[in-house]
């Protein structure tokens, strides 16, 4: 067992350089989501109240499908980062904490890929 204090053990190793990565990623995705979410709600208020053809026409526009894919990516990335912090704060059993974070990451990846494929299938026609 080392006689050095925990502080002495970590001193002098230098910065990990990636310590602020999660923080930055959460803010960056948040900033991206501000215009994207406003655009989505405004669009859906108009589109989702109409019929099938209205929705398909809307999604076939390259701008709409591009923005929707960007929103899906930013949304699930932001969701995964947020849930990670929640698990880190409230789950004290370390194995369960890590398992939950991994599960949410896999689910976010699955749901975003499914959603993007759905968007592409409509916008390219089938």
């Amino acid at each position: 067992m080392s006689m050095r204090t925990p502080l002495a053990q970590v001193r002098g190793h230098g910065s990990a350089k990636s310590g602020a990565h999660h923080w930055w990623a959460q803010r960056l995705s948040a900033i991206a989501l501000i215009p994207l979410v406003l655009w989505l709600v405004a669009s859906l208020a108009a589109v989702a109240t109409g019929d099938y053809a209205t929705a398909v026409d809307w999604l076939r526009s390259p701008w709409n499908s591009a923005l929707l894919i960007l929103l899906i990516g930013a949304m699930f990335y932001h969701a995964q980062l947020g849930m990670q912090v929640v698990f880190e704060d409230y789950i004290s059993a370390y194995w369960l904490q890590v398992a939950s974070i991994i599960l949410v990451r896999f689910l976010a990846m699955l749901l975003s890929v499914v959603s993007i494929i759905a968007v592409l299938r409509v916008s390219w026609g089938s």
Partner: protein
Amino acid sequence: MGSSNRPLSPHLQIYKPQLTAVLSIAHRASGIFLVIGTLLLVYWLTALAQGPDSYAQAQAFLGSTLGRVILFPWVLALFYHLCNGIRHLFWDMGAGFEISTVYASGKIVVVTSIALTLIAFGMAYAMRGGAL
């Protein structure tokens, strides 16, 4: 010294709920709720991709009483998380930390998110030609 009989600091139940604390935990709660709510968007998109029949089914569900009971808090949580998130971004830039400003921005967030929710549903009903 044993840790079992140490004096405890006052816990959540002792404190009178304050706007700042309530909005803080509401940000996290709305975030978790929205993560579950992403399933709605996935459901709508996959229904659309599967064709007119499944889309009509999804529309019928989302337009039903149950669908609306889910949609309304979803949009409210979305706008709350959005507005309060912007409040957080100002704090990240080091602005708005005075107690009076924190309370004022909190009230603005509550009013704005409710207003935006009502505007969104108002727009949706106007698009349907005013039919509920």
